């Protein structure tokens, strides 16, 4: 599909949407059309990809799968409240700088200054590491919504131009663009400026067919009819108004539990005993148990 003219800006992982879907599947990540298309576009257009969606639908897994299939280094920046420049971008190694100054006691200020703000004393943090790498890189900025608003401003330069400015060293531009993936659980709204620089993918619960395939892939020992009933019940639970709807991760956990228990049908007793694996709130469990009681 197409020639290579556009890959100059991109990361060049994929040739086509089909290629993206196939190779993701080969690493154990079953992608829907939307996921495969968007990942391919992010790759081809060289834009960061912002993935939003409920917890446990495989946002972080997607980054890992991308790194695996591109044989790329995965650089991960885990965001948290209070993360700052020194943790995300770079930091000067103060202790080492002090040692250097003490060691060179007799030299002049000019020499020392030129020296201590050199590469040797720079501690690179994930963002700078990803930018400076020569090999293919996947940069995962995880749970962006946990970080403070100020950090977003820090990211803008990295995301739009793939460069980082260190005042003492100048601007460092990526020789090879990393594939950037941001994830968010939407606990707060990300700024418009950040969103504008990214392609947006809402990763939702998969449809029944895809989820069955995921269960079969992740829990191969489980009986097919049981897997089907399981996926159908999870689908029904998601349609209810629950505090926390079960996610793919929970479906897989449930499948593993059933396999471990050696259950062969989903009858009332089995469901009652294992509902806690899928639902995490007492209210939800009560509501679901009510729904799943034979009349």
């Amino acid at each position: 599909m197409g020639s290579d003219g556009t890959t100059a800006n991109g990361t060049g992982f994929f040739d086509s949407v089909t290629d993206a879907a196939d190779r993701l599947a080969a690493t154990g990540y079953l992608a829907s059309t939307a996921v495969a298309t968007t990942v391919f576009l992010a790759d081809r257009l060289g834009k960061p990809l912002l993935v939003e969606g409920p917890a446990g639908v495989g946002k972080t897994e997607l980054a890992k799968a991308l790194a695996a299939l591109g044989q790329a280094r995965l650089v991960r920046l885990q965001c948290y409240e209070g993360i700052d420049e020194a943790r995300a971008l770079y930091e000067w190694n103060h202790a080492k700088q002090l040692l250097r100054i003490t060691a060179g006691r007799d030299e002049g200020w000019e020499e020392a200054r030129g020296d201590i703000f050199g590469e040797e004393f720079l501690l690179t943090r994930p963002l700078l590491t990803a930018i400076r790498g020569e090999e293919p890189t996947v940069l995962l900025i995880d749970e962006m919504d946990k970080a403070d608003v100020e950090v977003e401003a820090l990211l803008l330069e990295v995301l739009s131009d793939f460069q980082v400015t260190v005042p003492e060293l100048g601007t460092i531009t990526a020789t090879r663009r990393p594939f950037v993936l941001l994830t968010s659980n939407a606990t707060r709204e990300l700024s418009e400026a950040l969103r504008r620089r990214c392609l947006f993918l809402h990763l939702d619960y998969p449809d029944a067919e895809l989820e069955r395939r995921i269960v079969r892939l992740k829990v191969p020992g489980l009986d097919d009819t049981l897997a089907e009933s399981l996926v159908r019940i999870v689908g029904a639970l998601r349609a209810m108004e629950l505090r926390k709807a079960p996610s793919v991760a929970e479906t897989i956990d449930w499948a593993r539990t059933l396999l471990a228990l050696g259950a062969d049908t989903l009858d009332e007793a089995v469901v009652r005993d294992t509902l806690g694996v899928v639902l995490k709130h007492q209210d939800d469990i009560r509501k679901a148990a009510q729904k799943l009681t034979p009349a």
Partner: protein
Amino acid sequence: MTTAPRHTGAAGAPVPVGEAVPAGEPVTADTAARLTGLVRALRGHGLRIGPAETVDAAAVLDVLGFTDRERIRAGLAAALLRSDGQRAVFDATFDLFFPLGVGTPEAVRADPPPVPEDPEPPRFGRPDPLRDDLRDRLAAALAADDRAAQARLAGEVMEAFGRYGAGGTPGSDGWSAQQALGRLSPETLLARILTALRRPGAPTDLSDLVLADEVRRRIRDFRALVTTEARRRVAELRGPERIAERAVAPTADRIDFLYAGRDQLAELRRTVHPLARKLATRLAARRRRAARGHIDLRRTLRRSLTTGGVPLRPAYRLRRPARPELVLLCDVSGSVAGFADFTMLLVQAMSEQFSKVRVFAFVNRTAEVTDLLRSGDDPARLAARILTGAKVTGYHGNSDYGSALGGFADHHLDAVGPRTCVLVLGDARNNHRDPNVDALRRIAGRARRVFWLNPEQPSLWTTGDSAALAYAAVVEMHPCRNARRLGELITRLLPV
């Protein structure tokens, strides 16, 4: 956009996609016009899409080509959308500007269904072989969950039953999903599909319990298919711009509280928790800023004595971290129940942001309903629970703000203190009774702040039996027609 050369986006700026030979067809003038039309329609629905995004979208089309419609849908969504709430609007608008085909669906044209010998619309009781045939095939397609067959049937159904006013004056004809679905009535197939699918004997496997829900969902999806098909056919007659403007449902946060239907209210309820989380972070940010406080001059000067009168270390006046109390006073009568419901659930979901939340409801008498709001009970039945469980009506069932406010001021005024923020929710339509402004004044006198949120727009406040202006003279009144506005008001007004 009429003479756009290849690789030219919305604003005439070159699309940065290099000199590649595009995957499918080039981005032609027609496609560019289609794309800008789509973007304009989306903007009309309140989505903020700049030229940069449009250019991205053009690059997406260029890279993807035109071989797979679902891929184009996913690609354009990635370039144009910024949140999940915009997806429904996008999908409906996309279907209008990038339609599945022109005229009769291709599959139906290639393999036309049997033409009925008797084209007269059958009267009640007469056999209707065309309808029966479609229903049979639909039942089979729904039972097998065969999406392709369902899509084809939606086209056929529209072709057979959807047309109205054909042959009349131009502009009076069209396609109606309502009419087609009315003839077909897919809901009545439920029992038939269930008997076909149910395994004989008592259900041992619990997944059979959810079967009815699944089939209902499939029927609902089929109805949506038919509606989309109708919109597509009408758009061919009238142009996609007009249909996009009128027939595409707004995003959940822009649904008007007063005119929301049952499904829309359910959709709104699903947004309660995400919205509550967002508002909580906004309030927390305001609180953080407020907690920084101002310079305490007296303590700064006192401290400066230790440094020889130079104020090296400024002292700040610290604020005590106290959260406000909130009292909600809601009109729960039929006309504004949707608004009251949503706000009560939202405030309940945000309850950790306040030191205390008390909720009172009224139609013409006031009763406390805080306990009825506890989470865990079905939020969809909240209104019914309040109307049966609390004494909110007196001798008649009409709204009476005067006696409700009077009752609150007489019996529950202890709920309001100097740290309390009171929110009154209602349209102030008083059925021409005494507004009892004095009672509101008594409440306002005790509370820290009182706000009135009115789901009607200000131009209606002077009409009919509305006492809004009388109340607005005493307390701040804000129009609040949809969830987006409510969110803005809550973050802006509530004291932190």
